[in-house]
């Protein structure tokens, strides 16, 4: 299903989606973030480059209570699970790299034993994407990691900016339902609209981006470069702040801890919070032994997980080229540069590789 939405009627479309809570990028304190929008909000535009945080927090919040615990009068522990039952929500303005990121989160939280909390949130979420006519960041590199500025993965609807209007394309049954709910605001798409959208797509794909070199060879080369001294050298300026992982649309590591409100009687919550492989105590054993004891080992873990380990398991990179980790790094560590340098060194040391 393809339809046309006049840009001035975006607020009217939101108003038509009465069965959903709508979130869209809003500029707050100079930062783009997903916020709930009220129906008919006349000022609603999708003018963002990309949001500072990806939409992953909608299905995987930074802090989440698994269950509360307390003691019954006879001293027995009593657990109260808090699996959420959220009302339907739709997130507007999701860039294709972040749609791609959702597919990886869905993979991780859906495989082996599915994560009840993630599934509960994800089950009532819909994502309306916004294609990138030009790279929203100078650090974008989606095309070399299997993505596209017009990519549809993970999204329910894709909107394509045609200057004064959007071409709106349903990609899933949920997307069809959204467009059906908004049909009073949408108009028929014609051949001219489709041709224009195709032109935008070709122009977007032709737009130069930064690139991981020879991506198909990267997993093997990173494996060969596991012992490289480059890891330590490239990680040298790292301050271990973890911002690269906190802003990543695919990073999913977390911690589980008990937050205690009272020791006697015992009362509190078991809580999941985002965690980061860049933190020293992430892997530290109780004995003090740490399998990844230094910055180099931790940079290698972040990069290799995305470009080698996940690829070995799933055949795709766990990096979507959004560039957030590069933009936000306070010391200028650049994942594209790191991959390229380590891979190039490994290639140079393995002439048989060619």
């Amino acid at each position, binding site marked *: 299903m393809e339809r046309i939405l006049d840009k001035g009627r975006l607020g009217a479309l939101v108003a038509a989606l009465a069965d959903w809570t709508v979130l869209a990028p809003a500029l707050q304190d100079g930062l783009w973030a997903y916020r709930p929008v009220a129906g008919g909000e006349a000022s609603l535009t999708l003018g963002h480059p990309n949001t500072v945080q990806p939409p992953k927090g909608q299905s995987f919040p930074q802090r989440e209570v*698994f*269950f509360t*615990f307390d003691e019954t009068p006879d001293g*027995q*522990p009593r*657990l109260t*699970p808090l*699996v959420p039952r959220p009302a339907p929500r739709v997130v507007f303005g999701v860039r294709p790299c972040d749609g791609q990121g959702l597919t990886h989160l869905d993979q*991780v*939280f859906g*495989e*082996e*034993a*599915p*994560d*009840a*909390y993630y599934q509960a949130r994800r089950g009532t979420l819909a994502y309306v994407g916004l294609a990138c006519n030009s790279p929203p960041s100078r650090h974008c590199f989606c095309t070399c990691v299997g993505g596209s500025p017009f990519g549809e993965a993970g999204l329910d609807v894709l909107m394509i900016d045609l200057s004064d209007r959007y071409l709106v394309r349903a990609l899933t049954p949920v997307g069809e339902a959204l467009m059906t709910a908004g049909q009073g605001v949408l108009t028929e798409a014609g051949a001219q609209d489709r041709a224009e959208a195709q032109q935008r797509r070709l122009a977007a794909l032709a737009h130069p981006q930064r690139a991981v070199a020879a991506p198909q060879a990267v997993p093997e080369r990173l494996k060969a470069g*596991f012992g490289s001294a480059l890891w330590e050298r490239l990680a040298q300026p790292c301050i271990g702040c973890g911002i690269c992982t906190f802003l990543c649309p695919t990073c*999913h*590591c*977390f*911690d*589980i*801890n*008990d937050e*205690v409100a009272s*020791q006697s009687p*015992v*009362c*509190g919550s*078991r809580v*999941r919070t985002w*965690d980061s*492989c860049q933190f020293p105590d*992430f*892997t*530290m*054993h*109780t*004995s003090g*032994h740490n*399998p*990844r004891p230094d910055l180099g*080992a931790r940079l290698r*873990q972040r990069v*290799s*997980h995305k470009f*080698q*380990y*996940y690829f*070995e*398991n799933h055949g795709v990179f766990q990096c979507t080229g959004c560039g957030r980790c590069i933009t936000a790094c306070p010391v200028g560590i650049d994942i594209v540069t790191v991959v390229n340098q380590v891979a190039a060194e490994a290639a140079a040391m393995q002439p048989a590789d060619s």
Partner: protein
Amino acid sequence: MEGNSYLPQLARVVDIHEEVPGERAIKTFRLEFIDGDGFSHKCGQCAMLSIFGRGESMISIASSPLVHGYKQFSIMRAGRVTSAFHELAVGALVGIRGPFGNSFPVNDWHGKHLVFIGGGCGLAPIWPVIQTAVTKREDFGDITVFYGGRSPRDIMYRSELEKLRGAAEVYLSVDSPEDGWEEFCGFVPANLMEKEPSPEDAIAITCGPPAMIKFVIKNLHALGFQDEQIYTTVENKMKCGIGKCGRCNLGKDYVCTKGPVYSWADLKELPQEY
């Protein structure tokens, strides 16, 4: 709740046995599920134990899968959760979820000689295999158990080890001898070299401190054991148990789902991040 892997079941501490005293004390806890039979497990699998208000810790299930009605865990006092376990009294209720991980391929070892090499609290993860082997004694060839601790007081499962004699050859050792110690003095890998178990039709299963495992594997190779004949377990820090929280990985594997049991042939291919 059905399908919520993070929600523990409740279990009652029905017995506590002090294995090792002192600073690095080890106690064995016998837990019974308060609601039905709980879950069944295989040799080598782990469970996440909770004390509410303190947190969770991943602990090897030390009892045999052939034993029903309870599970045993031998816990060294080390951090926040394990220290809290050491404060418990019989009757306490704790949380348990699992089982997690793969298992020792015990059924593939029928007819083989089994050589167990443990050190410190590393006897616990391989204890279910030892128990299974002596319970189904006719399914296996010779059974040999090497085990060592720092001093005679650090030998865990002392009386159970004595009961193994007859069904198995048991070779104990201590790093620092005391008066009255009549068995081997020295490190476990050295004891292994002195007794020279044959690699012929044999499987070696080792667990203990990382430094011990390193030298055990070196010595097993010297004795002629192939990588495929050597099994060990990896004990990385874990939180979720279901391959999501990310901290226990070795390269592409999450130890909590693909491990903790590895043949050396498989383990040597993974990053040495354990």
